[in-house]
């Protein structure tokens, strides 16, 4: 069975005024159909850039150098033209960002933005039909007064409501891969938990593969089937969620877990940086086909 997403030996360098800095040092990762995979690390570890590379966004920056294998459902993404890659975004791959309210455009209604998303799959979809489909999708994320929501601007809705809207948008075109970059971190803890549960149920039902990016091990434990721990641009440990949580093998993973607040949420863990043990080779937990 081929993977939905496969990343092989991914390198990323930024060329800046003060020379070149390497951000990713050969990251490899795979996600199989219907699987939820978490990429865990502190901020600056390279998890968000990995997501943007999969979308092909980072490659458009003139000062970024990307190399490595990228395969979506067996197709080599690197052989796509910029235009073809763009064609995959919003259709085969979709993404959920950290703060739902600021990731919706403030001067267009939810309905207008939803229609634009639906037209990625169905160009020329009339607004009336789009609203109808959007209404049905909003019902699936438990929004029942969808007419009001579609007419509203993001600032008129609560953060949790916007998060549901964003989840509905992300799944609207039945993507084969959903990337969720710290979803709901900007929301308060109970709302975040609710919307994560909602997202969990939806992707489980639709069988959508998810790349779940987080610094929050508590959330990861609930959500993911498998975990990749990333530290300074390198994967330091990978394996099934249960295995990693039972017996974290790498010094960095252990430090990360020690820093986890007992309750879901809280600030990003910041283990003492630069401990030499963090640079130890990768720990691989077998099982789950990893």
């Amino acid at each position, binding site marked *: 069975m081929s993977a939905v997403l496969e990343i092989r030996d991914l390198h990323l360098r930024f060329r800046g005024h003060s020379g070149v800095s390497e951000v990713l040092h050969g990251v490899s990762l795979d996600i199989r159909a219907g699987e939820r995979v978490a990429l865990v690390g502190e901020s600056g570890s390279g998890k968000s850039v990995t997501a943007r590379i999969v979308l092909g966004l980072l490659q458009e920056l003139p000062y970024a150098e990307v190399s490595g294998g990228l395969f979506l459902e067996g197709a080599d993404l690197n052989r796509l033209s910029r235009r073809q890659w763009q064609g995959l*975004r919003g259709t085969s791959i979709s993404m959920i*960002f950290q703060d739902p309210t*600021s990731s919706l455009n403030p001067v267009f209604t939810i309905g207008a933005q939803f229609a634009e998303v639906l037209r990625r799959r169905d160009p020329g979809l009339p607004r009336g039909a789009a609203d109808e489909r959007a209404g049905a999708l909003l019902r699936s994320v438990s929004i029942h007064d969808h007419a009001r929501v579609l007419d509203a601007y993001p600032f008129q809705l609560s953060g949790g409501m916007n998060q549901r809207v964003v989840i509905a948008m992300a799944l609207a075109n039945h993507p084969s891969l959903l990337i969720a970059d710290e979803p709901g971190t900007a929301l308060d803890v109970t709302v975040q938990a609710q919307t994560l549960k909602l997202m969990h149920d939806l992707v489980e039902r639709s069988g959508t593969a998810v790349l779940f990016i987080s610094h929050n091990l508590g959330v990861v434990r609930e959500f993911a089937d498998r975990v990749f721990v990333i530290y300074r641009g390198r994967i330091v440990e990978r394996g099934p969620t249960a295995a990693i949580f039972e017996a974290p093998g790498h010094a960095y993973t252990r430090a990360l877990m020690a820093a986890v607040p007992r309750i879901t949420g809280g600030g990003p863990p910041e283990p003492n940086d630069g401990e030499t043990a963090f640079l130890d080779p990768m720990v691989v937990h077998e099982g789950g086909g990893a």
Partner: protein
Amino acid sequence: MPAVLRLLARRLGISLIVLAGVSMLIFGIARVIPGDPARIALGPNATGEQVAGLRQALHLDDPVAVQYGHFVADLLRGDLGVSLYTNRPVTLDIAQFLPATLELVLFAGVLMVGIGLPLGMWSASQRGRWPDHLIRVVSLLGVSAPSFVWAVMLMLMFAFFLPVFPIAGRITDSFEITRVTGFLLIDTLLAGNGAAFVDALRHIFLPAFALAVSGIGQAARLTRANMVETYDRPYIEMARAYGFPAGRIAAKYAFKPSLIPSLTIIGLDFAAMLGNAFLVEAVFAWPGLSRYGVAVILRKDLNAIIGTVLIISATFLIVNLIVDLLIAFLNPRIRHSERGAR
């Protein structure tokens, strides 16, 4: 939309306060003038009796506050006094000269928005690439010279060396156009005279462009700056992550949010053109209010000076009011806010 109406009422109120302030300011300036306005008006050959008579007629012997009271009372009746330069009521003079200036400034405003905004938009979407650098340098050059310099240069190039446009005036004299609106571009169309319309268009283009150059530069710079900021917002990243075409993101999803903060300044730049029209009208012999203004200022024609400044300020306030409404219309936060705040 009641929120918008509330906003309108509020801004209108503030505008009226400001206009009252402007009238006091300009009245004050006119009254601190060294020398006796009556003497200046009558000239050196008038007798002391004549001067005294005029002083009384103009209430010049009353305290300044009372003088201002008379001035406001006259103003409310639509009476700005008589111009010493044309010997006609100032209101008549203004009615005659204002349309030409308004037409020029409005046309320049259209050029400013029509050229400046797309340039800024393109520049921002090409950030860091050569079109961006080129537009930034050119728009900075545009704001780096007064409009009379652009007027003279454009005239030299496109009226003398390459005689594409006429040198002066609003329209060739041989066209007889009945004035309806005072805007020749409209009146020629109303008269159904296509040739006259084209002629008027050719006359207005160079002066309007000269007037608009720095506005175009300013609008482009502003639009670019605000759009560059907008491009860093998460909702633009989301639009890109969903594969919206780059052109559509630039023209719609990044442009509209960045237009709102730009508009206030664009309104101010438009107002600056009302002042700069003084310079451009002088170069192109454009028969507008500004040329009238310079003439009356050089003759120390107080009534006419006050009238001209007041009418220009009023125009400016109206423009700002329109801009505020436009912002309210574009910005859902204001449109839907309960308090209709600024």
